[in-house]
Protein backbone atom coordinates (compact mmCIF):
# COMPACT_ATOMS: atom_id res chain seq x y z
CA UNK A 1 0.00 0.00 0.00
CA UNK A 2 1.49 3.35 -0.95
CA UNK A 3 2.33 5.92 1.72
CA UNK A 4 -0.35 8.37 0.60
CA UNK A 5 -3.08 5.76 1.03
CA UNK A 6 -1.75 4.75 4.43
CA UNK A 7 -1.78 8.41 5.48
CA UNK A 8 -5.33 8.86 4.23
CA UNK A 9 -6.57 5.75 6.05
CA UNK A 10 -4.78 6.76 9.25
CA UNK A 11 -6.35 10.23 9.13
CA UNK A 12 -9.80 8.63 8.77
CA UNK A 13 -9.07 6.42 11.78
CA UNK A 14 -7.76 9.30 13.93
CA UNK A 15 -4.26 7.91 14.14
CA UNK A 16 -1.11 9.95 13.54
CA UNK A 17 1.81 7.98 12.22
CA UNK A 18 5.50 8.73 12.52
CA UNK A 19 7.70 8.50 9.42
CA UNK A 20 8.97 5.13 10.63
CA UNK A 21 5.42 3.83 11.15
CA UNK A 22 4.29 5.07 7.75
CA UNK A 23 7.13 3.21 6.09
CA UNK A 24 6.59 0.03 8.09
CA UNK A 25 2.78 -0.14 7.80
CA UNK A 26 3.01 0.63 4.11
CA UNK A 27 5.14 -2.51 3.65
CA UNK A 28 3.13 -4.69 6.06
CA UNK A 29 -0.25 -3.74 4.62
CA UNK A 30 1.06 -4.27 1.09
CA UNK A 31 2.11 -7.82 2.01
CA UNK A 32 -1.21 -8.53 3.75
CA UNK A 33 -3.36 -7.17 0.91
CA UNK A 34 -1.25 -9.16 -1.55
CA UNK A 35 -2.16 -12.29 0.38
CA UNK A 36 -5.83 -11.23 0.45
CA UNK A 37 -5.86 -11.53 -3.37
CA UNK A 38 -6.60 -15.20 -2.64
CA UNK A 39 -10.19 -14.02 -2.07
CA UNK A 40 -10.46 -13.21 -5.79
CA UNK A 41 -10.10 -16.95 -6.52
CA UNK A 42 -12.87 -17.98 -4.11
CA UNK A 43 -16.24 -18.87 -5.61
CA UNK A 44 -19.07 -16.38 -5.17
CA UNK A 45 -21.98 -17.14 -2.87
CA UNK A 46 -25.49 -15.72 -3.22
CA UNK A 47 -26.57 -15.91 0.41
CA UNK A 48 -24.60 -14.38 3.22
CA UNK A 49 -25.32 -12.49 6.40
CA UNK A 50 -23.50 -10.83 9.24
CA UNK A 51 -23.86 -13.39 12.01
CA UNK A 52 -22.96 -17.08 11.66
CA UNK A 53 -26.21 -18.15 13.34
CA UNK A 54 -29.71 -16.78 12.91
CA UNK A 55 -30.28 -13.86 15.26
CA UNK A 56 -33.77 -12.76 16.31
CA UNK A 57 -34.79 -9.28 17.37
CA UNK A 58 -35.09 -8.96 21.14
CA UNK A 59 -37.11 -6.03 22.38
CA UNK A 60 -38.24 -4.73 25.75
CA UNK A 61 -40.59 -2.02 26.90
CA UNK A 62 -39.19 1.38 26.06
CA UNK A 63 -38.93 2.58 29.63
CA UNK A 64 -35.93 4.27 31.20
CA UNK A 65 -34.03 2.23 33.73
CA UNK A 66 -30.74 2.56 35.53
CA UNK A 67 -28.91 -0.63 36.46
CA UNK A 68 -25.60 1.00 37.32
CA UNK A 69 -25.25 3.86 39.78
CA UNK A 70 -24.44 7.06 37.86
CA UNK A 71 -22.19 8.38 40.63
CA UNK A 72 -20.18 5.18 40.48
CA UNK A 73 -19.78 5.60 36.71
CA UNK A 74 -18.73 9.23 37.07
CA UNK A 75 -16.12 8.38 39.68
CA UNK A 76 -13.40 7.49 37.17
CA UNK A 77 -14.35 10.05 34.53
CA UNK A 78 -12.82 13.42 33.94
CA UNK A 79 -15.82 15.62 34.88
CA UNK A 80 -16.84 19.17 35.65
CA UNK A 81 -19.95 19.51 37.84
CA UNK A 82 -21.10 16.01 36.85
CA UNK A 83 -20.61 16.69 33.11
CA UNK A 84 -18.08 14.59 31.20
CA UNK A 85 -15.26 16.81 30.00
CA UNK A 86 -14.22 16.68 26.36
CA UNK A 87 -12.10 18.61 23.87
CA UNK A 88 -13.17 21.69 21.89
CA UNK A 89 -15.64 21.05 19.06
CA UNK A 90 -14.34 23.86 16.87
Amino acid at each position, binding site marked *: *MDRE*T*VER*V*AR*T*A*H*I*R*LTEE*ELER*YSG*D*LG*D*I*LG*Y*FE*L*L*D*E*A*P*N*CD*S*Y*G*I*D*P*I*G*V*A*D*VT*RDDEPRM*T*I*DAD*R*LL*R*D*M*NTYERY*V*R*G*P*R*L*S
Partner: protein
Amino acid sequence: MSYLQRLKDINAKYGMFHAMTDETDAGESRFLFSAKDNLTSLDMETCAGSRILQGYVPAFDAAAIERMKAAGGMLVGKTNMDEFGFGTFSANSAYEIPRNPFDRERSCGGSSGGSACAAAVLEGHVSLGVSTGGSICCPASFCGVYGIAPTYGRVSRYGLIDYGNSLDKIGVLSAKASDLRKYITIMAGRDERDPTSCVQPELKSERRRMKSVAVPKDGIQGLSGDVEAAFNDSIETLRSMGIDVEEVDMPSFRYAIPAYYVIATSEASTNLARYVGMRYGVQEGDLSLKFDDYFSSIRSASFGDEAKRRILLGTFTRMVGYRDRYYAKARQVRQLVIDDYKRILQDHDAVLTPTMPYVAPRFDEIERMSALDSYKTDYLTVPPNLAGNPHLSVPCGYDGNGMPIGMQFVGAHWDEDVLFTMAEEWEKAFDMRRPEVEA
Protein backbone atom coordinates in the same frame (compact mmCIF):
# COMPACT_ATOMS: atom_id res chain seq x y z
CA MET B 1 -7.29 -23.79 47.17
CA SER B 2 -4.04 -23.15 49.00
CA TYR B 3 -2.41 -21.42 46.04
CA LEU B 4 -4.15 -18.16 47.00
CA GLN B 5 -1.37 -17.52 49.51
CA ARG B 6 1.28 -18.07 46.82
CA LEU B 7 -0.55 -16.31 43.99
CA LYS B 8 1.76 -13.28 43.78
CA ASP B 9 4.89 -15.47 43.83
CA ILE B 10 3.50 -17.76 41.14
CA ASN B 11 2.53 -14.75 39.04
CA ALA B 12 6.02 -13.32 39.37
CA LYS B 13 7.32 -16.45 37.59
CA TYR B 14 4.69 -16.84 34.88
CA GLY B 15 3.07 -13.44 34.44
CA MET B 16 -0.42 -14.78 33.85
CA PHE B 17 -2.31 -12.06 35.77
CA HIS B 18 -2.70 -8.38 34.99
CA ALA B 19 -4.69 -7.79 38.18
CA MET B 20 -5.34 -10.16 41.06
CA THR B 21 -7.06 -10.43 44.38
CA ASP B 22 -5.37 -9.56 47.65
CA GLU B 23 -7.44 -12.22 49.42
CA THR B 24 -5.48 -15.14 50.82
CA ASP B 25 -8.50 -17.04 52.08
CA ALA B 26 -11.16 -18.49 49.80
CA GLY B 27 -13.78 -18.19 52.56
CA GLU B 28 -17.09 -19.75 51.56
CA SER B 29 -16.21 -19.90 47.85
CA ARG B 30 -16.89 -23.18 46.10
CA PHE B 31 -14.22 -22.69 43.44
CA LEU B 32 -11.59 -20.22 42.27
CA PHE B 33 -11.50 -18.83 38.76
CA SER B 34 -9.81 -16.21 36.65
CA ALA B 35 -11.04 -14.34 33.59
CA LYS B 36 -9.44 -12.85 30.51
CA ASP B 37 -8.86 -9.14 30.97
CA ASN B 38 -11.33 -8.14 28.26
CA LEU B 39 -14.24 -9.17 30.51
CA THR B 40 -15.30 -6.34 32.78
CA SER B 41 -14.93 -7.08 36.48
CA LEU B 42 -16.42 -5.05 39.29
CA ASP B 43 -13.74 -3.08 41.14
CA MET B 44 -10.86 -4.97 39.47
CA GLU B 45 -8.92 -3.08 36.80
CA THR B 46 -9.79 -4.17 33.24
CA CYS B 47 -7.47 -3.09 30.41
CA ALA B 48 -7.83 -5.75 27.67
CA GLY B 49 -4.06 -5.54 27.24
CA SER B 50 -4.26 -1.93 26.08
CA ARG B 51 -2.65 1.20 27.48
CA ILE B 52 -5.67 3.19 26.32
CA LEU B 53 -7.73 1.50 29.06
CA GLN B 54 -5.15 1.94 31.80
CA GLY B 55 -6.88 2.77 35.08
CA TYR B 56 -10.32 1.56 33.98
CA VAL B 57 -12.06 -0.02 36.97
CA PRO B 58 -15.50 -1.20 35.79
CA ALA B 59 -18.67 -0.52 37.69
CA PHE B 60 -20.13 -3.90 36.74
CA ASP B 61 -19.30 -7.55 36.15
CA ALA B 62 -19.57 -9.08 32.70
CA ALA B 63 -22.49 -11.55 32.53
CA ALA B 64 -20.09 -14.53 32.40
CA ILE B 65 -18.29 -13.41 35.57
CA GLU B 66 -21.61 -12.57 37.23
CA ARG B 67 -22.84 -16.14 36.63
CA MET B 68 -19.60 -17.72 37.84
CA LYS B 69 -19.79 -15.68 41.04
CA ALA B 70 -23.46 -16.56 41.49
CA ALA B 71 -22.48 -20.25 41.31
CA GLY B 72 -20.06 -19.77 44.21
CA GLY B 73 -16.91 -18.81 42.32
CA MET B 74 -14.29 -16.37 43.54
CA LEU B 75 -12.56 -14.26 40.88
CA VAL B 76 -8.86 -14.37 41.75
CA GLY B 77 -7.36 -12.56 38.76
CA LYS B 78 -7.64 -11.02 35.32
CA THR B 79 -5.42 -12.70 32.79
CA ASN B 80 -2.89 -11.13 30.45
CA MET B 81 -3.67 -11.13 26.76
CA ASP B 82 -2.87 -9.58 23.40
CA GLU B 83 -4.19 -6.01 23.15
CA PHE B 84 -7.95 -6.33 22.50
CA GLY B 85 -7.28 -9.96 21.44
CA PHE B 86 -5.07 -8.97 18.49
CA GLY B 87 -2.54 -11.77 18.38
CA THR B 88 -1.58 -15.43 18.44
CA PHE B 89 1.12 -15.31 21.13
CA SER B 90 -0.11 -12.88 23.85
CA ALA B 91 3.00 -10.83 23.01
CA ASN B 92 1.14 -7.79 21.61
CA SER B 93 0.44 -6.25 24.99
CA ALA B 94 1.09 -3.03 26.87
CA TYR B 95 1.49 -5.15 30.00
CA GLU B 96 3.17 -8.39 31.02
CA ILE B 97 3.56 -11.24 28.54
CA PRO B 98 2.61 -14.60 30.08
CA ARG B 99 5.30 -17.27 29.95
CA ASN B 100 4.68 -20.89 28.96
CA PRO B 101 4.49 -23.21 31.99
CA PHE B 102 6.53 -25.89 30.16
CA ASP B 103 9.31 -23.49 29.08
CA ARG B 104 9.29 -19.87 30.19
CA GLU B 105 11.26 -18.81 27.11
CA ARG B 106 8.22 -19.69 25.00
CA SER B 107 4.80 -18.21 24.38
CA CYS B 108 1.57 -19.37 26.02
CA GLY B 109 -0.25 -18.74 22.73
CA GLY B 110 -2.92 -16.15 22.33
CA SER B 111 -4.82 -14.26 22.75
CA SER B 112 -6.11 -15.91 25.96
CA GLY B 113 -2.51 -16.80 26.91
CA GLY B 114 -2.75 -15.78 30.55
CA SER B 115 -5.89 -17.89 30.95
CA ALA B 116 -4.23 -21.01 29.52
CA CYS B 117 -1.19 -20.40 31.73
CA ALA B 118 -3.37 -20.11 34.85
CA ALA B 119 -5.27 -23.28 33.93
CA ALA B 120 -2.01 -25.19 33.48
CA VAL B 121 -0.17 -23.88 36.53
CA LEU B 122 -2.83 -23.53 39.25
CA GLU B 123 -4.22 -26.74 40.70
CA GLY B 124 -8.00 -27.13 40.34
CA HIS B 125 -8.31 -23.78 38.57
CA VAL B 126 -10.69 -22.79 35.78
CA SER B 127 -10.17 -19.76 33.59
CA LEU B 128 -12.49 -17.89 31.22
CA GLY B 129 -11.13 -17.12 27.77
CA VAL B 130 -12.52 -15.37 24.72
CA SER B 131 -12.13 -16.58 21.15
CA THR B 132 -12.50 -14.48 18.01
CA GLY B 133 -10.25 -16.42 15.61
CA GLY B 134 -8.80 -19.16 17.81
CA SER B 135 -7.88 -17.40 21.03
CA ILE B 136 -9.01 -20.23 23.29
CA CYS B 137 -7.88 -23.35 21.41
CA CYS B 138 -4.47 -21.94 20.43
CA PRO B 139 -3.29 -21.21 23.99
CA ALA B 140 -4.95 -24.40 25.28
CA SER B 141 -2.81 -26.32 22.77
CA PHE B 142 0.42 -24.46 23.59
CA CYS B 143 -0.06 -24.87 27.36
CA GLY B 144 -1.30 -28.48 27.28
CA VAL B 145 -4.79 -27.95 28.71
CA TYR B 146 -8.38 -28.43 27.57
CA GLY B 147 -10.22 -25.47 26.09
CA ILE B 148 -13.60 -24.88 24.48
CA ALA B 149 -15.09 -22.02 22.52
CA PRO B 150 -18.83 -22.82 22.47
CA THR B 151 -21.26 -21.96 19.69
CA TYR B 152 -21.48 -18.26 18.85
CA GLY B 153 -24.24 -16.91 21.09
CA ARG B 154 -24.12 -19.66 23.73
CA VAL B 155 -22.64 -17.44 26.46
CA SER B 156 -23.81 -13.85 26.88
CA ARG B 157 -21.19 -11.28 25.92
CA TYR B 158 -22.60 -8.49 28.04
CA GLY B 159 -19.54 -6.86 29.56
CA LEU B 160 -17.11 -8.19 26.95
CA ILE B 161 -14.82 -5.56 25.44
CA ASP B 162 -15.55 -6.32 21.80
CA TYR B 163 -13.01 -7.24 19.17
CA GLY B 164 -15.26 -8.56 16.37
CA ASN B 165 -18.93 -8.68 17.30
CA SER B 166 -19.92 -11.32 14.77
CA LEU B 167 -17.06 -13.57 15.95
CA ASP B 168 -16.46 -13.17 19.70
CA LYS B 169 -17.28 -16.10 21.99
CA ILE B 170 -16.63 -16.66 25.69
CA GLY B 171 -15.36 -20.09 26.74
CA VAL B 172 -13.44 -22.09 29.31
CA LEU B 173 -9.89 -23.43 29.80
CA SER B 174 -8.94 -26.03 32.38
CA ALA B 175 -6.53 -28.91 33.01
CA LYS B 176 -9.59 -31.06 33.77
CA ALA B 177 -11.84 -32.11 30.85
CA SER B 178 -15.04 -32.30 32.89
CA ASP B 179 -14.67 -28.62 33.84
CA LEU B 180 -15.60 -27.62 30.30
CA ARG B 181 -19.11 -29.05 30.56
CA LYS B 182 -19.50 -27.90 34.16
CA TYR B 183 -18.62 -24.23 33.65
CA ILE B 184 -20.10 -23.70 30.19
CA THR B 185 -23.35 -25.01 31.68
CA ILE B 186 -23.10 -22.38 34.43
CA MET B 187 -22.52 -19.52 31.96
CA ALA B 188 -24.81 -20.59 29.11
CA GLY B 189 -28.32 -19.30 28.67
CA ARG B 190 -30.29 -16.38 27.37
CA ASP B 191 -29.53 -12.86 28.48
CA GLU B 192 -31.55 -9.97 27.07
CA ARG B 193 -28.49 -7.74 27.42
CA ASP B 194 -26.89 -9.71 24.55
CA PRO B 195 -29.49 -10.47 21.85
CA THR B 196 -27.21 -13.01 20.14
CA SER B 197 -27.61 -15.21 23.22
CA CYS B 198 -31.40 -15.24 22.91
CA VAL B 199 -31.84 -17.69 20.01
CA GLN B 200 -29.99 -20.57 21.63
CA PRO B 201 -31.63 -23.93 22.27
CA GLU B 202 -31.09 -25.59 25.61
CA LEU B 203 -27.57 -26.86 26.29
CA LYS B 204 -27.94 -30.64 26.34
CA SER B 205 -25.99 -32.93 28.63
CA GLU B 206 -26.89 -36.34 27.25
CA ARG B 207 -23.28 -37.49 27.10
CA ARG B 208 -23.67 -38.51 23.47
CA ARG B 209 -20.56 -40.34 22.30
CA MET B 210 -18.66 -39.41 19.17
CA LYS B 211 -18.77 -42.07 16.48
CA SER B 212 -17.07 -40.51 13.48
CA VAL B 213 -14.78 -37.61 12.68
CA ALA B 214 -13.82 -36.00 9.38
CA VAL B 215 -10.28 -34.75 8.75
CA PRO B 216 -10.12 -32.05 6.03
CA LYS B 217 -7.17 -32.65 3.69
CA ASP B 218 -6.16 -28.96 3.85
CA GLY B 219 -6.13 -29.23 7.64
CA ILE B 220 -3.17 -31.60 7.69
CA GLN B 221 -0.91 -29.54 5.41
CA GLY B 222 1.96 -27.40 6.64
CA LEU B 223 2.40 -29.16 9.98
CA SER B 224 5.69 -29.51 11.84
CA GLY B 225 7.00 -33.10 12.03
CA ASP B 226 6.25 -33.43 15.73
CA VAL B 227 2.68 -32.19 15.34
CA GLU B 228 2.06 -34.48 12.37
CA ALA B 229 3.41 -37.50 14.28
CA ALA B 230 1.37 -36.76 17.42
CA PHE B 231 -1.76 -36.19 15.35
CA ASN B 232 -1.33 -39.48 13.46
CA ASP B 233 -0.82 -41.35 16.76
CA SER B 234 -3.96 -39.70 18.13
CA ILE B 235 -5.98 -40.82 15.12
CA GLU B 236 -4.93 -44.39 15.86
CA THR B 237 -6.02 -43.93 19.48
CA LEU B 238 -9.39 -42.57 18.31
CA ARG B 239 -9.83 -45.62 16.06
CA SER B 240 -9.02 -47.89 18.99
CA MET B 241 -11.79 -46.07 20.88
CA GLY B 242 -14.22 -47.14 18.16
CA ILE B 243 -14.35 -43.80 16.30
CA ASP B 244 -14.32 -43.79 12.49
CA VAL B 245 -11.86 -41.35 10.94
CA GLU B 246 -12.28 -40.26 7.33
CA GLU B 247 -10.39 -37.72 5.21
CA VAL B 248 -12.67 -35.24 3.44
CA ASP B 249 -12.47 -32.26 1.08
CA MET B 250 -13.33 -28.85 2.50
CA PRO B 251 -12.85 -26.44 -0.43
CA SER B 252 -13.49 -23.26 1.57
CA PHE B 253 -10.70 -24.01 4.07
CA ARG B 254 -7.94 -22.23 2.14
CA TYR B 255 -9.90 -18.97 1.85
CA ALA B 256 -10.75 -18.72 5.54
CA ILE B 257 -7.67 -16.75 6.67
CA PRO B 258 -8.08 -13.74 4.34
CA ALA B 259 -11.86 -13.74 4.89
CA TYR B 260 -11.39 -13.80 8.64
CA TYR B 261 -8.82 -11.01 8.74
CA VAL B 262 -10.99 -8.77 6.56
CA ILE B 263 -14.10 -9.30 8.69
CA ALA B 264 -12.33 -9.24 12.06
CA THR B 265 -10.33 -6.08 11.36
CA SER B 266 -13.35 -4.35 9.81
CA GLU B 267 -15.31 -4.95 12.98
CA ALA B 268 -12.34 -4.11 15.21
CA SER B 269 -11.70 -0.80 13.50
CA THR B 270 -15.26 0.33 14.19
CA ASN B 271 -15.28 -1.06 17.75
CA LEU B 272 -12.07 0.77 18.61
CA ALA B 273 -13.48 4.11 17.41
CA ARG B 274 -14.94 4.56 20.92
CA TYR B 275 -11.50 4.89 22.53
CA VAL B 276 -10.79 8.60 22.36
CA GLY B 277 -9.57 9.55 25.81
CA MET B 278 -12.94 10.32 27.34
CA ARG B 279 -15.13 8.55 29.91
CA TYR B 280 -12.72 5.71 30.82
CA GLY B 281 -9.10 4.70 30.65
CA VAL B 282 -6.49 7.25 29.56
CA GLN B 283 -7.93 10.79 29.85
CA GLU B 284 -4.74 12.78 30.21
CA GLY B 285 -4.78 14.70 26.91
CA ASP B 286 -4.87 18.45 26.35
CA LEU B 287 -8.58 19.38 26.33
CA SER B 288 -7.85 22.77 24.79
CA LEU B 289 -7.19 20.94 21.50
CA LYS B 290 -9.85 20.62 18.82
CA PHE B 291 -11.57 17.22 19.06
CA ASP B 292 -9.88 15.76 15.96
CA ASP B 293 -6.45 16.61 17.32
CA TYR B 294 -7.32 15.49 20.85
CA PHE B 295 -8.64 12.09 19.72
CA SER B 296 -5.69 11.54 17.37
CA SER B 297 -3.13 12.44 20.01
CA ILE B 298 -4.58 10.04 22.59
CA ARG B 299 -5.09 7.19 20.11
CA SER B 300 -1.66 7.56 18.51
CA ALA B 301 0.12 7.50 21.86
CA SER B 302 -1.96 4.76 23.49
CA PHE B 303 -2.68 2.06 20.90
CA GLY B 304 0.02 -0.55 20.38
CA ASP B 305 1.63 -1.52 17.09
CA GLU B 306 -0.71 -4.41 16.17
CA ALA B 307 -3.82 -2.46 17.20
CA LYS B 308 -2.82 0.34 14.82
CA ARG B 309 -2.10 -2.16 12.04
CA ARG B 310 -5.53 -3.79 12.41
CA ILE B 311 -7.33 -0.45 12.63
CA LEU B 312 -5.65 0.66 9.39
CA LEU B 313 -6.40 -2.63 7.66
CA GLY B 314 -10.04 -2.71 8.78
CA THR B 315 -10.61 0.93 7.88
CA PHE B 316 -9.13 0.39 4.42
CA THR B 317 -11.16 -2.73 3.56
CA ARG B 318 -14.41 -0.90 4.38
CA MET B 319 -13.63 2.20 2.32
CA VAL B 320 -15.59 3.13 -0.77
CA GLY B 321 -13.94 1.53 -3.76
CA TYR B 322 -12.51 -1.40 -1.81
CA ARG B 323 -15.54 -2.63 0.18
CA ASP B 324 -16.91 -4.98 -2.48
CA ARG B 325 -13.58 -6.54 -3.24
CA TYR B 326 -12.69 -7.23 0.40
CA TYR B 327 -15.55 -6.96 2.89
CA ALA B 328 -18.40 -8.20 0.69
CA LYS B 329 -16.30 -11.06 -0.70
CA ALA B 330 -15.13 -12.06 2.77
CA ARG B 331 -18.75 -12.38 3.87
CA GLN B 332 -19.44 -14.67 0.93
CA VAL B 333 -16.47 -16.85 1.85
CA ARG B 334 -17.73 -16.98 5.40
CA GLN B 335 -20.99 -18.45 4.12
CA LEU B 336 -19.05 -21.03 2.10
CA VAL B 337 -17.21 -22.10 5.27
CA ILE B 338 -20.50 -22.36 7.18
CA ASP B 339 -22.00 -24.45 4.35
CA ASP B 340 -18.95 -26.73 4.21
CA TYR B 341 -19.17 -27.48 7.94
CA LYS B 342 -22.92 -28.14 7.64
CA ARG B 343 -22.35 -30.55 4.77
CA ILE B 344 -19.54 -32.47 6.47
CA LEU B 345 -21.29 -32.59 9.86
CA GLN B 346 -24.34 -34.24 8.32
CA ASP B 347 -22.29 -37.44 8.12
CA HIS B 348 -19.83 -36.93 10.98
CA ASP B 349 -19.95 -35.85 14.61
CA ALA B 350 -16.96 -33.53 14.35
CA VAL B 351 -14.29 -32.12 12.07
CA LEU B 352 -10.81 -32.86 13.39
CA THR B 353 -7.42 -31.17 12.79
CA PRO B 354 -4.39 -30.44 14.91
CA THR B 355 -5.07 -27.23 16.84
CA MET B 356 -1.88 -25.44 15.83
CA PRO B 357 0.65 -26.34 13.11
CA TYR B 358 3.58 -26.25 15.55
CA VAL B 359 4.35 -26.16 19.28
CA ALA B 360 4.67 -22.90 21.25
CA PRO B 361 7.45 -20.84 19.63
CA ARG B 362 10.23 -19.11 21.55
CA PHE B 363 9.91 -15.35 22.02
CA ASP B 364 12.98 -14.70 19.84
CA GLU B 365 11.30 -16.67 17.01
CA ILE B 366 8.12 -14.61 17.42
CA GLU B 367 10.10 -11.35 17.15
CA ARG B 368 11.37 -12.44 13.74
CA MET B 369 7.87 -13.16 12.38
CA SER B 370 6.14 -10.65 10.10
CA ALA B 371 2.53 -9.68 10.79
CA LEU B 372 1.44 -11.82 7.84
CA ASP B 373 3.43 -14.84 9.11
CA SER B 374 1.61 -14.53 12.40
CA TYR B 375 -1.83 -14.25 10.73
CA LYS B 376 -1.20 -17.36 8.62
CA THR B 377 -0.43 -19.38 11.76
CA ASP B 378 -4.14 -19.29 12.61
CA TYR B 379 -5.24 -21.34 9.57
CA LEU B 380 -6.51 -24.26 11.65
CA THR B 381 -8.44 -22.30 14.27
CA VAL B 382 -9.96 -19.59 12.06
CA PRO B 383 -12.46 -21.73 10.07
CA PRO B 384 -14.65 -22.82 13.04
CA ASN B 385 -14.53 -19.29 14.43
CA LEU B 386 -15.74 -17.80 11.15
CA ALA B 387 -18.57 -20.32 11.09
CA GLY B 388 -19.52 -19.90 14.76
CA ASN B 389 -19.20 -23.65 15.40
CA PRO B 390 -18.24 -24.93 18.85
CA HIS B 391 -14.65 -26.16 18.92
CA LEU B 392 -12.58 -27.83 21.59
CA SER B 393 -8.86 -28.47 21.94
CA VAL B 394 -7.49 -31.47 23.83
CA PRO B 395 -3.83 -32.16 24.58
CA CYS B 396 -2.71 -35.05 22.34
CA GLY B 397 1.08 -35.31 22.58
CA TYR B 398 4.46 -33.71 23.36
CA ASP B 399 7.43 -32.90 21.15
CA GLY B 400 11.05 -33.85 21.83
CA ASN B 401 11.44 -30.89 24.20
CA GLY B 402 8.34 -31.82 26.16
CA MET B 403 6.21 -29.04 24.64
CA PRO B 404 2.49 -29.84 24.42
CA ILE B 405 0.61 -30.51 21.16
CA GLY B 406 -3.17 -30.24 20.80
CA MET B 407 -5.90 -31.38 18.45
CA GLN B 408 -9.17 -29.60 17.76
CA PHE B 409 -12.67 -31.05 17.39
CA VAL B 410 -15.29 -28.87 15.67
CA GLY B 411 -18.95 -29.75 16.28
CA ALA B 412 -22.24 -28.66 14.75
CA HIS B 413 -23.89 -25.46 15.97
CA TRP B 414 -25.31 -25.91 19.50
CA ASP B 415 -23.92 -29.47 19.82
CA GLU B 416 -21.38 -28.90 22.58
CA ASP B 417 -22.53 -32.13 24.31
CA VAL B 418 -20.71 -34.47 21.92
CA LEU B 419 -17.52 -32.40 22.27
CA PHE B 420 -17.67 -32.44 26.06
CA THR B 421 -18.13 -36.23 26.04
CA MET B 422 -15.21 -36.64 23.64
CA ALA B 423 -12.91 -34.62 25.93
CA GLU B 424 -14.03 -36.62 28.98
CA GLU B 425 -13.39 -39.92 27.16
CA TRP B 426 -10.08 -38.66 25.79
CA GLU B 427 -8.89 -37.71 29.27
CA LYS B 428 -9.14 -41.38 30.28
CA ALA B 429 -7.10 -42.53 27.26
CA PHE B 430 -4.39 -39.85 27.19
CA ASP B 431 -1.44 -39.62 29.56
CA MET B 432 -1.48 -35.88 30.26
CA ARG B 433 1.57 -34.18 31.75
CA ARG B 434 1.41 -31.24 34.15
CA PRO B 435 4.20 -28.67 34.23
CA GLU B 436 6.54 -28.51 37.20
CA VAL B 437 5.43 -25.32 38.87
CA GLU B 438 8.15 -23.00 40.12
CA ALA B 439 7.38 -20.36 42.70
